[in-house]
């Protein structure tokens, strides 16, 4: 069987996942493939999602490298310059040609620059490992910076910079943060939490122009006429799919490369597109999970393997931000039963939509533990409690009642778990004359397992010594405390 030649353009997280899935799937099916990857960036594949974590000091650049593929020709620093569809050949920046049976475009997306830098230094983005290095070098304590855009990445980055004591201002065009995902109430709670963490937030404004000195940015003038000092401005105003290559090859593109449900171009089925550069029927998501799902599907198809069995929901978004928890899942449809808990004083706001006994959407701000439960309930389609509000107040962990006092403890309560000894048994032993822990142990075996109930038994002894009237009478007359009742 002649191998199916696959050329992958780009080596980001989705491309990497695709190659990995393809390797596993062909190992199962035995179908031969020949895979070439044109990496573009001068690095081996890395985990781009973690860049904001590196800024926050919670991840290391060196730790972002993704596993190397076996038996795959990966060319780093080599980009594709043209796709010749008539000859089914990709031309690369080294002048080499790669014949393909399927070319997989995974070129990703580039940052959108919503302003004119006017040649000033200090205007940046956060998309590559090099961007990340530059930002870390620039992020010194007290330095004023503007994060342009209050979406997911903007907030993650602002929180990351704040951990380095940067004076961060988020400038956001819409009237509330993350307007694509959040309702105004939740967004307000997010904003207040950010401000509590020392991040300034300017909403409903744009950067009109940048001011500079000696070729460097010094401040930004906003559309409301106010000026914000900043010597670094980081654009986090969304991304634009990289489709130049596809467009030049004559493939149909809109926002991204237009593909069908099979991830293949509607113009030419030997061209596939996955991840941020692709525009499937449901539109561009700009998230990792749909890209990974596309990768798995396409890999299975090429390998002749069964399609990925479980369709995991891929509309769960978890913000990776130091000092702020935001988790979104599904869609809060006002037509469904919507339950809300809002508690801005501690930065908490939970909104839950339920329909037909299952969770259909939720927005969780400042409640990581509850969000974790909701995600597992949502993703598995598990039935919700009769009163869905119960999902908003309890953590999974069982309640731990405070240790009861010897007095308030019911007589039937087990004091020594290891040996199944109740308070009543200990009280009876005490009445029978076992007044020390050792005597109680000899009589009841309490404390003789793990020993964890020693304090509790001691407490009961003390309490008994106080309340047992027969003991009181005797103590008035006797001196030794070891008197036993016979």
């Amino acid at each position, binding site marked *: 069987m002649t191998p199916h030649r696959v050329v992958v353009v780009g080596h980001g997280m989705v491309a990497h996942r695709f190659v990995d899935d393809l390797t596993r799937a062909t190992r199962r099916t035995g179908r031969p493939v020949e895979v070439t990857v044109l990496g573009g960036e001068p690095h081996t594949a890395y985990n781009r999602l*973690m860049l904001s974590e590196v800024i926050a000091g919670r991840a290391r650049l060196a730790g972002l490298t993704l596993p190397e593929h076996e038996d795959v020709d990966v060319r780093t620093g080599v980009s594709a310059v043209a796709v010749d569809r008539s000859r089914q050949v990709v031309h690369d920046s080294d002048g080499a040609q790669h014949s393909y049976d399927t070319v997989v475009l995974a070129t990703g997306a580039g940052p959108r620059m919503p302003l004119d830098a006017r040649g000033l230094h200090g205007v940046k983005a956060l998309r590559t490992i090099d961007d990340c290095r530059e930002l870390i070098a620039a992020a010194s304590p007290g330095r004023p910076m503007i994060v342009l855009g209050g979406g997911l990445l903007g907030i993650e980055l602002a929180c990351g910079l704040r951990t380095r004591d940067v004076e961060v201002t988020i400038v956001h065009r819409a009237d509330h943060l993350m307007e694509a995902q959040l309702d105004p109430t939740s967004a307000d709670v997010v904003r207040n939490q950010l401000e509590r963490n020392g991040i300034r937030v300017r909403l409903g404004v744009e950067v009109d122009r940048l001011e500079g000195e000696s070729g460097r940015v010094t401040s930004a003038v906003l559309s409301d006429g106010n000026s914000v000092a900043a010597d670094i401005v980081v654009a986090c105003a969304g991304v634009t799919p990289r489709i130049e290559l596809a467009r030049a090859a004559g493939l149909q593109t809109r926002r991204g490369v237009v593909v069908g449900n099979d991830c293949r171009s509607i113009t030419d089925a030997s061209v596939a597109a996955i991840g941020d550069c692709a525009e499937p029927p449901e539109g561009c998501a700009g998230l990792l999970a749909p890209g990974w799902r596309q990768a798995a599907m396409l890999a299975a198809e090429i390998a002749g393997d069964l399609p990925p069995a479980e369709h995991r929901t891929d509309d769960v978004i*978890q913000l990776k931000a130091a000092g702020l928890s935001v988790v979104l899942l599904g869609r809060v449809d006002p037509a469904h039963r919507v339950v809300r808990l809002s508690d801005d004083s501690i930065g908490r706001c939970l909104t839950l939509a339920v329909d037909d006994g299952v969770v259909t959407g939720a927005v969780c701000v400042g409640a990581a533990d509850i969000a974790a439960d909701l995600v597992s309930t949502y993703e*598995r*389609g598990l039935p919700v409690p009769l009163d869905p509000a119960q999902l908003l107040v309890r953590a*999974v962990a069982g309640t731990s009642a405070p240790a009861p006092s010897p007095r308030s403890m019911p007589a039937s309560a087990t004091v020594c778990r290891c*040996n199944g000894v109740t308070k009543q048994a200990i009280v009876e032993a005490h009445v029978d004359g076992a007044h020390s822990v050792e005597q109680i142990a000899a009589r009841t075996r309490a404390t003789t*397992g793990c*020993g964890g109930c020693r304090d509790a038994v001691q407490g009961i002894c003390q309490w008994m010594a106080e309340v047992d009237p027969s003991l009181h009478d005797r103590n008035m007359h006797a001196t030794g405390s070891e008197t036993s009742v016979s």
Partner: protein
Amino acid sequence: MVDTHCPYCALQCAMTLSVGADGVAVQPRDFPTNRGGLCQKGWTSAQLLSAPDRITTPLMRDASGELRPVTWEAAYDRIVSSVRAAQGAVGADGVAVFGGGGLTNEKAYTLGKFARIALRTRLIDYNGRFCMSSAAAAGNRAFGVDRGLPFPLEDLGGADAVLLVGSNLADTMPPSVVHLDGVRRRGGLIVVDPRRSATAALTENGSGVHLQPIPGTDLVLLLGLVHLVLQGGAADEAYLAERVSGWDAVATEAALWWPERVSRETGIPVSALRQAADLLVSAAPHRGGRGAYVLTGRGAEQHAHGTATVTAAIDLALALGLPGRPGSGYGCLTGQGNGQGGREHGQKADQLPGYRSITDPVARQQVAAVWGVDEADLPGAGLPAVELLDRLGRPGGPRVLFVHGANPAVSGPDAARVRDRLAALDLLVVCDFVPSETARLADVVLPVPQWAEEEGTMTSLEGRLLRRRRAVEPPAEVRDELRIWAELAQRLDTPVRFATDPREVFEELCRASEGGLADYSAANYDLLESVTPLHWPVTSADGTPRLFLDRFATPDGRARASVPDLVTATERLGPDSPLHLLTGRVLQHYQSGAQTSRVPDLVRAAPRSAVQVHPVTAQRLGLDEGSLARITSERGDAVARVVLSDHLRPECVFVPFHFDGEVLINDLTDPATDPVSGMPQFKACAVQVAPAGEVPA
């Protein structure tokens, strides 16, 4: 007064037995592992000696289908003729043997020898396959040797952090909890369990953190912790460079498991993941901590991806530089009384004494020489338990099965299928002292002594050799297994003699183990009389309390880090089966319950199986405390009484696997097995739960 150890779990608490007018009395004895403690099982263990349904004579099924007392000769005749017939029909493998992790070292060893040279079958395996096999496979791969705890249990006391993955030792071996006092005082106990078990509750009041994952996701959780250690720059780079191989691949795999992704898979909040990682990192010796331990139990291991999960736990320990350092390490908490020794001396399908492979020509030569047979006469590797049991009574499969110290009719996964296979045999021989569920299915039942009636050695969870001593004589008609095998071997015309004196057997075992991984060669009963602790390998009178201090037992002396295989085999929940069934033990009972269900005090304390259901789930399903619920999986169903508990995740229900005559929960569990270890998927399967109404009395 006789000094011995408890009959039950691998902690092997020290006890003193005294015989008086009312029978045998138990007193706890001070010892490093139990520090003078005993749980209720230990305290009441002597009650089993006078179990009213104790088997005291050989029994054989008669024409009417009843088990009736017979003479030993009649029983032997029946066994020998059936063995001959089966082997005449399908060859040597027409007979199979199923052993147990509760047998003494002497018996585990002799059972392996009996199978290989008296029965000449390769088909022997044991219930430890349901217990320790995943940890054993992962430990052998990583360290070159599998000793549950490669350090004394007491060492835990000095650590700043202990991570317990899927172990409920507060219920399964209560006296061991004392060794967690130090780490709890310092706030460093981390317990991973989908239930807020008694052990998980030990993290309360600032003693540590409880991570409550979705069942079957421990593997991802552990990779997430590796990720956090690496990304925090907290890996012990010097240790990894010097003592570990294969690390880079693990590091790059872990790069893919960032906390938010792990949270989504496991249901554990990111903040809790970070807290756990921070505790481990600050406890790690290279960060100036007092030390840290990573310990796994059956909750992590009894899955079809159990070996991979243990591998991830070992990877985490390696990242922190723990194994092979005094005061730190990785270990697994062995379950059965002789679960350690039982897996070292030849009960396993692929194994010869000394924890050596039956395919290793050198080991074969040596063991054949000790046994006085020709190497070529030793059979090869057999089948792991689930496969072996599934082969019973099928065309070309075994027609005779010997069961020793095990109750697979209850303890096997998809137990109804196991019982079907047992019923398909021509002859089922069960050696037991009580009529266990398996014994009741047998054609021949042979009465054997209990722990207080026999001599021998046990190897505890920390690889320490212990003496089990006789306090009372067994009932007159009871015969020791060593004698039974010797007598059967003779009747089967085995060319060599089988020793019947435990001391003599032990000496032979020690010779056979020489040069193996579990090398006992310098041990003997006299040495065991001295107070010095003796941990294997015993190549000198000192033993080896701590392994790996200088090198690991791998060919290059380095620990081998492996990328765990990420296939999660747990049945996925869905609308038709929206709950995970978890199984486990309760404090008062042990394994299938064959022993503890005959101890009146224990039955009073925990009389019946029940299904624990979260109140929110119970409300949705229309279940109340005390009502009956039917639990249904793809394989079977069971009815149990409901106990409400908010100690579970709401999508989980919990049922103990001890059989009390009512709820045989392993009829529901998943027989899918681990590709490396053969461990079945006991711990989690997908079920539906509904009200069952009242069952007619």
